[in-house]
């Protein structure tokens, strides 16, 4: 059983093989440096009090339970919710809240701040829970986008008009192309014939349409529509606060791009191709 979150404590029930994970997550405010060296205020759910622009992926196994402590290190109130499973509506600055969840089957969930979800996600706040079968690992793409000229207003709690939203930075795990290639949790590397799972969450505010070169993938789970399960596709729409679990079994070697086919989203600060674009490497 493998968990990456350092504060995790596992209590194993010998009779059932089920585990209860005790975890702590921190809502941190910090400074995010973009691919083109701009620095902005950013929010993230991290596994330690130290800010990282990469929201923590909570990794569990089927039938695990999660007892979660949420510490709000920010100067304003936030909530915590696993979409579809409830949570804590509001946590005052400096306060701590407790919540628990149980997960039956392999799946992917979004967690976010329900108190001001769009605005918080507009500053980067939103992460993913991956529930895996035993001995199954995955790659993680937590995608989102930001509108640079809204950052300071959002950071100060000022209102924005989401009907005029025009994001100009498009991120995977808090990074843009080509930096995202350095993220081993995102950069798919494998061999022909491997069974590769990719967990995708959209914690931004825009729809995205993720296109694979070189391969079709099977949809194992879709939070948006269960009728999508079983489809073999090369292009995968994903709406805000939705998730997908894909299975890739590569049939050929090579390095192939995966990118948003809203081709405006393959940019950062208006510069192509610094956006939502990475490559798969199959040996």
């Amino acid at each position, binding site marked *: 059983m493998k968990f990456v979150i350092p504060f995790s404590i596992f209590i194993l029930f010998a009779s059932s093989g089920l585990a209860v994970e005790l975890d702590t997550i921190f809502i941190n405010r910090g400074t995010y440096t973009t691919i083109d060296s701009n620095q902005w205020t950013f929010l993230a759910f991290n596994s330690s009090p130290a800010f990282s622009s990469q929201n923590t992926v909570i990794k569990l196994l089927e039938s695990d339970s999660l007892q979660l402590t949420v510490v709000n290190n920010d100067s304003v109130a936030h909530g915590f919710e696993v979409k579809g499973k409830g949570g804590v509506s509001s946590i005052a600055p400096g306060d701590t809240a407790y919540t628990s969840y149980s997960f039956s089957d392999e799946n992917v969930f979004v967690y976010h701040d329900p108190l001001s979800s769009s605005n918080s996600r507009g500053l980067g706040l939103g992460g993913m829970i991956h529930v895996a079968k035993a001995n199954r690992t995955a790659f993680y793409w937590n995608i989102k*986008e930001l509108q640079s000229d809204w950052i300071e207003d959002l950071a100060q709690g000022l209102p924005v008009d*989401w*009907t*005029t*939203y*025009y*994001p100009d930075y498009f991120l995977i795990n808090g990074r843009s192309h*080509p930096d995202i290639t350095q993220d081993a949790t995102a950069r798919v590397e494998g061999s022909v014939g491997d069974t590769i799972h990719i967990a995708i969450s959209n914690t931004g*505010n*825009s*729809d*995205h*349409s993720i*296109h694979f*070169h*070189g*391969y*079709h993938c099977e949809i194992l789970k879709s939070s948006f529509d269960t*009728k999508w*399960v*079983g*489809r*073999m*596709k*090369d*292009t995968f*729409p994903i709406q805000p606060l939705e998730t997908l679990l894909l299975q890739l079994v590569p*049939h*050929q*070697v*090579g*390095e*192939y*791009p995966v990118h*948003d*086919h*809203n*081709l*405006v989203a*393959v*940019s950062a600060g*208006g*510069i*192509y*191709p*610094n956006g939502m674009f990475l*490559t798969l490497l199959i040996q």
Partner: protein
Amino acid sequence: MKLLTIHIACFLILSLDVYSQQVRQIIGRNVGWKTLSDGNNVRVFGFADNLSQYPDVPGPTLEFTEGDSVIIDFWNISQGAPHTIHLHGLDVNQENDGVPHLSFEVHHMEHGFYRFRAPAAGTYLYHCHVVSSIHVQAGMYGLIVIHPPSGENYSWEGGYEIHRDHRLFMSEIDTVWHNDTVLLHEYDTTSSMHHVKIPIYDPQHFLVNGLGQSQLIDSVIVTGQVDENIYVRLANIGYYKNIVVLPSGLNARIVSSDGRPLSTEIETDSVVVYPGERFGVLCQASEEFESEISVVYSNLNTGVSVATEVVEVDISGFLGIDDSEHQPEVRISPNPADDFVTIDVLDQENDEVLVKLIDPNSRVLDVFQITQKRTRYDVSYLPSGTFFFYFPRGEEKWTLKWVKK
């Protein structure tokens, strides 16, 4: 000795490639102009079948048969940045994938050869992948249709028989992106990665098969007969989401996506098509009617629907019913033909008939009136493929399927 000869013969037969080799030339040009529905022209980049053509948007539809060994000979005669062809969804190998820094670029007056085995029957796309945000918006895209070995009358091998095959290919145009300051971007050929500034995207024109508004009305028609299997291929190469609303009378169901049959078919009148996606929608009308397909264009960031385009639908006649009331009063021969066809009006009392010639992309290629019992019509300009002659006359309408050799 005789047995050995038979064995050798069998080996040779089995060794032969049972699929044909297709060589298709495509020309890449930067000097096209597209007339928009408001009458204004914008500069486009695009693909053409031959040197005598300026590029159209979208480019020519490429059609192959599953299993074909295909060579696309891409001849780039344009100056400036190079171009490529990305075979979207065909899962070709890296060398033939058309991504500049991972495969190859095709520079001015160079030929690039893309080699692949035509995959599973279905609907695919091709587009340039050099600074793709700009070159796709510039117009460098087209459809690919792969037919099953059993023929064009089937959706895929072992799939549905299809009597009509219509294609609705959606995109948008932002005229700002068609200024030379955007199109003729800098390109450092010594660099493997090309960083280019792109403008704000705010399209003013919303297209189906390259046409919008008044251009689209009466120029693209989805026709069929009652009880026919009408296969509507939907594809989106734009940067907005499409919500395609079909008339309830078509009894539509989504049966395929991205070149694969769906594991679970969906009965619906509304199909959402995101950028890069394709869907196969099987329709079967239970009665005659006239209606329209609405295509809504929705901003992916705001969710706001900003435009609607309309495609005419005309279901008239009955599949396989030899009812004199619905017998076409026109005849086309020969079928198939190469250079000319003869159109005979069989109605003894009236020999004036309006004729619309419709291509496989549901696009009206020609409209003409015939005023005599027998008319000779030149078809030599048409490429090989299946076409429809559509004869609307008051309450009566006939559609005749015809094949150009």
